[in-house]
Structures are given as structure tokens and as C-alpha cells.
């Protein structure tokens, strides 16, 4: 197990190194620079050179790269070019709160509702329950979340006026963006749970459980649900990704000061260090999530636990 973890962490570090390198060079390939913006257009040539020197942009690319890596190893993502005097790490730390709240709420709501809907659909297979759940699931996957977000804003925010439309002040501001984000989670989880559940209900061990004389509730709770949920964990990864990308748009629509909107803003102004920092942050978050999922898998499924231990 320890060895497994060690190998996985090494793999993660290699992955992150490759991503860091790739983003660094891609960024340098982009046309324009952080000082192209209008408010800086009246910079004199000397001032410009001074700026370049200040941020180390005058050095050869290889040197910049080495410096960047050096800082990275020490946990320093560099200073933002745009937000004066702020380190990228601080910037992310300051913005992560709202994003984390949204993500957490969306996952929680998505999983709970998705699993419940999936189980109901499986048990009421081929009834109105099943059909309507699956309709929701199909809509959830096919309707882009910004469309759903706009609908929420219009009906809940404007017409009913019960929730703030697009500003961030209190907890209530997080409800609509979380809802908008969770739609795809609900849809994916409901569909997946339903299919797994239908599969599990066909298994022989369900018959064994019933033949023992267990109550209906126990049969479902102890034998069906756990087995059906094991594969559901596998789609946690893709869901996390969809939440990350989803949050870019959703945060902008609802005016949430999270890292999604930070990302979009920094791209608009060629803020190299922030873009690189955020890319790395997203990547690290993603690979770590995958690691946690794999470990979780071992906890919940004894078959994998054992073979993992052997390694």
C-alpha cells in the first residue's frame, strides 16, 4: 500500500511538471504581452524595458524557465502582472472560498439527488417515475449550464425576486450558482446509478439475500445500494472536471468572485503568472482528486483492496 502511494505521488509530480512546462512555453508563444493594455499604452520605451526587467521578462527564455521552476519548487507561483503587488498564491487563496463553496454544494446536492433519483428510477423501472427521472437526466446533460443559469436568474432572481441575481454578498448568493452547477452532476449520477442499480438487481446475490428472508429494505440497503455505488465513484473524476470548467462560466454569469472568474479575467489581460498558476492549481486539484477516488475505491470494494495490498 505504501509503495503504491509512493508510486502514485511520483506520477503526480511528473504530471504536474509536464503541465507546468507546457503552460509556460505555450504562454510565451501567445502574441502580446501583459503590458499591451490601453492604460499602459503611453509607457515610454525605457519604462517598458524597466517593467520587463522588473518581472524578469528581459532574460533569455531558458533562464526564465529555470527561475520559474525554482520558484515553483519553493511554492512560489510568482507575482501577478495585473493585480499589482499581489502574489498569485495569495490571489488564489483569496478567491478560493466562494468557488469551494459552490463546488462543494454542487457535488453534495448532485450526488444526493442523483443517487436518490437513480435508485427510484431503477426500482420503478419502466414506469412514469423512471421516465421522468431519465428526462431530467437527459436535459441535465444536454442543456448547457449557462442556459439553465440564465433561466434561474430570470425566473427565480427577477420574476420571483427571492434570490440575488448577480452579486456576491451573503450565503443566499451561492444558492443559484450552486444549483446551476449541480444540474449536470445530478444528471450524470442519476443515469449512472440507475444503470448500475438495474444491473445489481439482476445479480444472483440479490436472490440469495431475498432467499435468506431479509426484509425488502435490508435487501436493498445492505446488498443492492453498496454494490451499485462502487462504479458511481469512478465518474467522480469526470464530474470534478465538468465542475471546474462549468465554474468558469457560471462564476462569471453570477458575478461570483471565485477562481473561475479570476481565470477568465487573467486570460483577458495576458496575466502570465496568474494563468500559469491557476492552470497548475486546477491540474493539481484534478490529479489529487483522482488519487483520492482510487483510494476510496479500495476502501469501498474489498476486491480492489486486496489486490492493491499485494502490490
Amino acid at each position: 500500500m505504501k509503495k503504491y502511494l509512493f508510486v502514485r505521488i511520483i506520477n503526480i509530480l511528473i504530471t504536474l511538471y509536464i503541465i507546468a512546462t507546457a503552460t509556460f512555453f505555450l504562454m510565451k508563444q501567445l502574441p502580446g504581452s501583459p503590458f499591451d493594455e490601453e492604460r499602459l499604452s503611453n509607457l515610454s520605451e525605457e519604462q517598458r524595458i524597466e517593467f520587463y526587467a522588473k518581472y524578469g521578462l528581459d532574460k533569455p527564455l531558458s533562464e526564465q524557465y529555470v527561475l520559474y521552476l525554482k520558484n515553483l519548487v519553493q511554492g512560489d507561483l510568482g507575482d501577478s502582472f495585473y493585480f499589482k503587488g499581489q502574489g498569485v498564491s495569495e490571489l488564489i487563496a483569496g478567491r478560493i472560498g466562494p468557488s469551494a463553496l459552490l463546488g462543494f454544494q454542487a457535488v453534495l446536492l448532485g450526488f444526493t439527488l442523483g443517487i436518490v433519483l437513480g435508485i427510484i428510477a431503477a426500482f420503478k423501472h419502466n414506469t412514469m417515475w423512471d421516465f421522468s427521472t431519465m428526462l431530467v437526466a437527459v436535459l441535465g446533460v444536454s442543456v448547457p449550464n449557462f442556459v439553465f443559469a440564465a433561466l434561474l436568474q430570470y425566473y427565480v432572481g427577477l420574476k420571483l425576486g427571492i434570490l440575488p441575481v448577480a452579486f456576491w454578498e451573503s450565503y443566499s448568493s451561492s444558492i443559484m450558482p450552486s444549483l446551476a452547477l449541480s444540474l449536470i452532476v445530478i444528471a450524470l449520477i442519476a443515469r449512472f446509478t440507475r444503470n448500475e442499480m438495474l444491473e445489481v438487481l439482476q445479480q444472483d446475490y440479490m436472490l440469495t439475500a431475498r432467499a435468506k428472508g431479509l426484509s425488502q429494505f435490508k435487501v436493498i440497503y445492505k446488498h443492492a445500494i453498496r454494490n451499485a455505488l462502487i462504479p458511481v465513484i469512478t465518474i467522480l473524476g469526470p464530474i470534478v472536471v465538468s465542475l471546474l470548467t462549468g465554474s468558469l462560466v457560471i462564476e462569471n454569469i453570477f458575478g461570483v468572485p471565485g477562481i473561475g472568474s479570476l481565470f477568465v479575467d487573467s486570460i483577458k489581460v495576458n496575466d502570465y503568472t496568474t494563468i500559469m498558476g491557476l492552470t497548475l492549481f486546477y491540474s493539481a486539484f484534478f490529479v489529487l482528486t483522482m488519487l483520492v477516488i482510487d483510494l476510496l475505491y479500495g476502501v469501498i470494494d474489498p476486491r480492489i483492496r486486496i489486490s492493491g495490498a499485494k502490490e
Partner: protein
Amino acid sequence: MEKLLELKNLHVSFRTYAGKVQAVRGVNLFLKKGETLAIVGESGSGKSVTSKTIMKLLPGHSAKIDDGEILFEGKNLVHYSEKEMQKVRGSEISMIFQDPMTALNPTMTIGNQIIESLMAHQKIDKKQAAFKAVELLKLVGIPNAEARIMQYPHQFSGGMRQRVVIAIALACNPKVLIADEPTTALDVTIQAQILDLMKDIQKKMKTSIIIITHDLGVVANIADRVAVMYAGKIVETGTVEEVFYNPQHPYTWGLLGSMPNMETREELIAIPGTPPDLLNPPKGDAFAERNEFALKVDYLREPPMFKLSETHYAATWLLHGKAPKVEKPAVRSRKRLAVTRPNLQAVAEKPQVKQSLVEIKNLKKYFSSGKNEVLKAVDDISFTIYKGETLGLVGESGCGKSTTGRTLMRLYDATDGEVLFQGEKVHGKKSPAELKEFNRKVQMIFQDPYASLNPRKTVADIIAEGIDIHGLAASKEERREKVYELLETVGLNKDHANRYPHEFSGGQRQRIGIARALAVEPEFIIADEPISALDVSIQAQVVNLMKKLQKERGLTYLFIAHDLSMVKHISDRVGVMYLGSMVELASSDELYDEPLHPYTQALLSAVPVPDPAREKSRERIILEGDLPSPSSPPSGCRFRTRCPHATELCASSVPKWREAKPNHWVACHLF
């Protein structure tokens, strides 16, 4: 004796998209205290449905008990609610299922699965339940029960899992145990262990057992009474002796005749055709269509149960006073197997000049399974297959018989050693033309007739694929003619050419598979368990067909199977494999009459034969334990860990593969 359980005129149907399938059509049965009743029949006969109906375990939304009574100790279970049934299940009536690999919840320790059953019916706390669970595991013969109770199902072998399933079923000491094909998914030596266990438990706990099976050998071994089911009805019932030695229903005749025993030499008596469609069950006797003795009245009216003795009943019009007397086929001779008599005649009959077709020399096939782990699927085997013969290859699952077949065909590369086909190396580099020629000459018939035919192709295209690849037909007309001819050869007809595989039954599909193999005019056919997925009566049809084709076309077969009696029946010589090595090879008569290797002896003794008197009197060699893992086989002789004769020599050195008697090869230190 008192009737513990009785079914009266039970009708069960399923609602499907196509219509109402009448799976059980008026079954009358009873089970007395302490006896074992076997329900025999082919797939679709309704035997499983009947057993699940007793427990009311059928899917509620599609299955329906249309009529009849299920009387358990005088109470009618048909009217029981789901809640009331939950009290009966597990505590009064228990059930064990066919496949132990899937019958246990993979995410729960086996201890918890037993405890759960105990706590559902008895007022005991978890500690007491855990203590009882250990006792139960000991009862069903699981060594080291205290430690193993914490383990998960995947840490047990198939045979051990079936013991766990039995332990769960016995947890609350039920009065009736229903076993639905409890040994079908197991190897013969493990099957023998489980059957012994069931008999043992019945003696100790006085449980009444209903065993559902298609294997008449198992019936002869374990049952007191038999009910033969066909198309949702009981067609004959009686004590085992009555049904086996004095069968009255033509279907029972067919069933007994289509199963070879160790002595059968003549062609098997196959039952023609396939069972009827229960969407529209035929009027009259459902078996009439396949019955060569059918009378006119069979097509019009259902025969009643004719009483032959206090216990023996059969439903056929042949027993009516006015029916013509028919000579029933000699389905059984009661002569005992002469175990020690050398079969001189058979030796003399052998063809004198033998031309070798395939030579296998020190063949090895290893698979890497994970890091630094090598699975030695086939480890150093040598033998020769002669032109025109059928060589049978038997062994338990995991012994490497299928790997051998596939390696011979070049589907796998050999790790070491060589295979010569007609004197030329099979493995290694070959030009495309050589490869094509080799592929034409060697063909394969697969085990699963459902998975081995492409569902999106018509039968004609499936059969003709080889013809197209090898350019064996000059024109479209010739191709069509060839397909028609092949279909007729395998007993299908022209009209079948444009249909798709799903329109055929298992037996018919296997015929299509054979036609496909024959299409390219091969010389050597590897048949990998070609009949194990088929019903007994259909097995006989396919085996007879294969024998006939061999005679007509001079084919050479490698027949891989685990069913020893069928292998004996079809093969000229038989090789026995154990854990990747060949332990014995001899002519089939000699091997069965005078097995040398202790494993062969145990294997033969484990096969139940459809003869109750012999089954109940003979001494069995029951092998202890399970098959060791092929990735870390025992040192020296691989069989030594289960061998009753093992000595120190067996642990230290590998026995040589040598000719102990003329044409009788064995790898054992005893010889």
C-alpha cells in the same frame, strides 16, 4: 411418511413483450420429510421456475402464479404476503443457487452474510450469531473457519464458495433445502465433494432436499425420488430405481439414451428437434412433436398421469390400455463396469499404420500476470495427434486444456517448445500465403454458441466468410451452393441461410459453428468444449453429427471438454491434464478401464454415472482441497498436494513423461 411440501396443479406464467409464456403448466409434486427429490429437465422445462415459485422469488412484475396451491405443512404459500413469505424464507425453506461465483455479495464478508441470515430469524445478538456462523462454516467443511469468517467471497475458490452458500442456507436449520443446479458450475472433483456434503448434512440435520438438475448422474447419486419435467409439466415421477431402470415416458427414454455412460459404444440416441415454444404450448402431449412413438391422440389430448405403482407415475398415452405396445429402446443395460478387465479387443482393433498430423514437443505457454508473476498455463507437454483420430483432452478448469488448443492453432504464441503440423512448424515466422494455408487447414469450434456467432451477419455470410477469405468459390452461385450444401451437412436447411443467429436455438447455433468450420475444408478441427453449453439431448445430436462428419471427411479432432463420459464416448485416445501438465495419455478404453495416474483415477471416480445402484454402492476417491494456483504450482509433481499416494520423492522431483505400457503414457513416480 408425511408430506412436508406439496404442489397442486401449479401454473406459473411470465408476461413478456411477445406475450404470455406459460413456464409451468400444472405441476403436481410432493416432498416427504427427510427425502431427496430430484427435478430433472432441460433448460426451459420450468424446473427452475418451479423451485423459485415455492420460495415466491420470481420477479413480481412479470411472473404470476395463475393457479394452484403450494402447501407447506398444510399452509398454502400462494396466499402468503411478501412479509409472511420473509418469515418462511431462510428459516423454513432455504435455497442454494447454481453459480457460487455470483451468489455471494462481493462487498460483504462471508461472516456477515451468514450472521445476517441468522439474525433475520432468530433472537440472538451479533456475538452469538458470529459464534454460530463459525460453527456453520465448520459444518460445511471450511478449514480455519475462525479466520476465514472475516474474508470476502473473492478470497474463496468456487467449491469453497458453494460451501459458504450452503452454510447460509442451513443457518436457521430449515426443513426444506432447495438446490438449483448446485454443482453445475463446479468441476467434477469439487462436484463430488459438494454432493457428499449435501448427503452428509441431510443425515445430520434431517433436511428434506429438492435438487434441480439436468445431470442424470447427479440424480442417480443423490436422489431418492425423481420428477422428470418437460415443457412445464411433470411427465414422469417415481423412485430413482423405477425411473432409471423402468422408464415409461418416451422423453425419459430419450434423456437416458442421450447421455453416454462409460460403456456406451454405439451411437447416442439423440432426441430429434427442440423443445416447444411455451408462448403457444402445443395442444395435447407437448413431447409429441419429438416422439417417434407418438400416437394420433397425443396431438389432440393431454395424457393424464397413469399410475404404474404406488410411487411411479407417467404421463403418456402409450400406457393407455388401448395403446399399441411399443418396443421401448434398450436405454439401459445394467451391466457393471468391469474395472480391471483389460480390453484386449479394443487394442487389436486399432489401425496399424498411424500417420502423425500434429506433433507437440515440450510445449510451454506462460502468461505474465502482474509483476514478476508468471502463470504457467501450459508447462512442458508433449504428445502426438494422429491423422483421422479424435484426441480428447480433459481436465478441470484452469488445467490449461483450452490454452493448449489455442496455442496449437497459433492463436497464442508458444513460450517454448514447438508444434509441428504436417511436419511444419506452426509458430515462428510464416509468409502470408503459408499462414493462410495453415489457417484453412486448422479450424476451431467454440464453446459458447451464443457468443461465437456475429449477431449482425446472416448465417450464409457467417458460413461463407472463410470461403470468401480463401477464395474457395468462383462465383456467387457456387458460394450459395456451398453454403446450402454445408447447411444440409450439419442438419439444417436452405431456408436458414438468410436468417440471423438469434433466430436459432443453442444446438442449431452450434451446428452453424460446425458448418463454418467445415466451410474451408479443414483437416484438423479443435473443438473447445463444443457441447458444454448445450442440453443433454442436444449434446447427443451434436456429438453424433461430429462423429458422422469425421467418418465422411476423414477429419482429425482435438476434443477439449470437462465431461469425461462424453469425451470417452467420442475419443479414440484421451489425454488428462492437471495444472498445466499432461499426466496421462492412453486409448480411451484403456484409460477408463485401467487408469494409472492417481489423478485420473480420482477424476473417473468423481464422475457420477446415471445408474443409481452403482452410484449408491461404489466407493469414491474424493480429492481433498482445491486446485493450487497455476502461478505458484507445487514443487515436483504438481498433483502431490492432493494425491493420496504422495511420497517425499514426489515433492523433490518432477515425474518423467513416459510410456508405462505400450501406447499408455503417464507422468507419475508410481510407474
